[in-house]
């Protein structure tokens, strides 16, 4: 179909970071038609990273996280109204309030939700929280302000570790239960995970690795009182934070004929959504956590990245595409993320999945400042810095060009010999 950038009806589903940046990119690329932004939450777009950090410590009010916009969007906002269905033949979106919204160009940026505790009854007990949205963070902040006797965190991923760190900053006793041998094992591997474990233990986090919570106990009045561990043992806690990762919000696409499941909505390299036959729907693009796309840097492996930077860059790519000004190259921004916890700054570029070797390329774990480079089959695939961020761009360039692994030796600030260590990652990529 031919498209003029000037006209038509654009709808963005999802009013968070990717939806906002995608809408801005549409306008910046010259789209002058009508623009509607649909959001399930009642809030205008806000930034999530502070929610698991300074919002919990009370330094930032949850409502202070509203995102800046530098573009006059001239948009109609449908906030507090989830999308519930998509009819691609009629090019119409169905909303939770029964309204129908026609579109010519649709950006899907519905993101993820927290994976709930598997037992719904236990998950509804008072004192059981998850943290994904602004309102979740405000509720958990209120619980922390009431000085719980002990917080139990289920899951030692980034969110779980950041929440544990916030508890210790508030001097609240905290136990973190993680099934792997270390926290952050899925993304960093157990070699770096052990560094993170030591950091949190030194700050007083009661870390239970190789452990799992089997069930949560009711105090008889509908509030959680205790967690029973698999294999025996229990932990008394009046606040439980379920930090088991996220599920992509694709349920509303059921019956649309698009290729979507809880792992994401499939897109091609240009950013168009794919139907169940694998054909692109050129009226629809996807961006952010929900979009699963073939990453050119990793042999076209399909990934859905829950990264702040990916939400921004992929949304800009998708916005231009829908405006009729697509980028020349397929989307393939280098994955990046950061996490601050326990007073340290963890930053990463690339994807560690499948790494078969790791070297400490800069600095020294003993000094608490270092950069670890991950390799796979003789190529650099990822780098993780611990309080060593200024070295990261140099290694990002090596990862982008798939430079040989192990890398150059005897560079500035490098240890004399680079031992290749086992990274300790799970056997199979889990994305």
């Amino acid at each position, binding site marked *: 179909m031919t498209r003029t950038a000037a006209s038509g009806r654009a709808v963005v589903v999802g009013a968070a970071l990717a939806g906002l940046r995608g809408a801005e990119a549409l306008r910046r690329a010259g789209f002058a038609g009508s623009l509607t932004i649909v959001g399930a939450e009642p809030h205008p777009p806000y930034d999530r990273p502070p929610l698991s950090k300074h919002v919990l410590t009370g330094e930032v009010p949850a409502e202070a996280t509203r995102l*800046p916009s530098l573009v006059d969007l001239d948009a109609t906002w449908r906030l507090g109204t989830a999308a519930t269905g998509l009819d691609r033949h009629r090019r119409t979106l169905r909303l939770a309030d029964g309204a129908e919204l026609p579109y010519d160009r649709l950006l899907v940026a519905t993101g993820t939700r927290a994976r709930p505790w598997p037992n719904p009854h236990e998950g509804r007990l008072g004192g059981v929280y998850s943290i994904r949205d602004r309102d979740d963070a405000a509720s958990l902040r209120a619980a922390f302000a009431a000085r719980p006797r002990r917080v139990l965190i289920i899951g030692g991923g980034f969110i779980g570790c950041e929440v544990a760190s916030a508890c210790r900053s508030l001097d609240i006793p905290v136990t973190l239960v993680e099934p792997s041998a270390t926290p952050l094992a899925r993304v960093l591997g157990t070699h770096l995970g052990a560094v993170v474990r030591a950091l949190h233990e030194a700050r007083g986090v009661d870390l239970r690795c190789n452990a799992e919570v089997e069930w949560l106990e009711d105090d008889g009045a509908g509030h959680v009182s205790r967690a029973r561990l698999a294999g025996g043992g229990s932990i008394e806690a009046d606040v439980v934070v379920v930090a088991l990762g996220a599920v992509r919000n694709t349920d509303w696409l059921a019956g649309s004929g698009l290729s979507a499941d809880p792992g994401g909505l499939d897109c091609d390299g240009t950013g168009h959504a794919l139907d169940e036959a694998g054909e692109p729907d050129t009226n629809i693009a996807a961006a952010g956590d929900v979009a699963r796309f073939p990453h050119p840097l990793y042999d076209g492996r399909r990934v859905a990245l829950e990264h702040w930077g990916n939400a921004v860059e992929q949304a800009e790519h998708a916005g231009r595409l829908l405006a009729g000004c697509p980028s020349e190259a397929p989307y393939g921004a280098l994955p990046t993320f950061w996490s601050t916890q326990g007073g340290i700054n963890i930053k990463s570029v690339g994807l560690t999945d499948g790494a078969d070797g790791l070297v400490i390329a800069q600095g020294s774990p003993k000094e608490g400042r270092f950069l670890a480079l991950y390799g796979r089959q003789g190529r650099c695939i990822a780098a993780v810095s611990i309080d060593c961020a200024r070295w990261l761009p140099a290694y990002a360039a090596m990862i982008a060009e798939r430079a040989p692994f192990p890398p150059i030796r005897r560079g500035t600030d490098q240890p004399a010999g680079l031992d290749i260590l086992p990274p300790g990652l799970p056997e199979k990529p889990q994305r």
Partner: protein
Amino acid sequence: MPETPPEQAPALSENALRVSVDLNRCQAYAQCCYAAPRHFRIEGREALFYDPAPSGADRDAIERARISCPVQAIRVEDPERSAP
């Protein structure tokens, strides 16, 4: 501009700015901390903490912070100045 959002944050000043820092870009050069010490600080060795909603009364300091960032990681929206 977008129509008025359905909920206004009660604890914020009416004229709060909106600040976001791309912490992938941030290299902890800390120039923002010198320009606007009430709203930016380094925690530990290199973790930047910033106030995402500083008062509009501090817009000059925030603007100095924005332009002094060596990696241009700071975005600021000033609702009063961008209002039609």
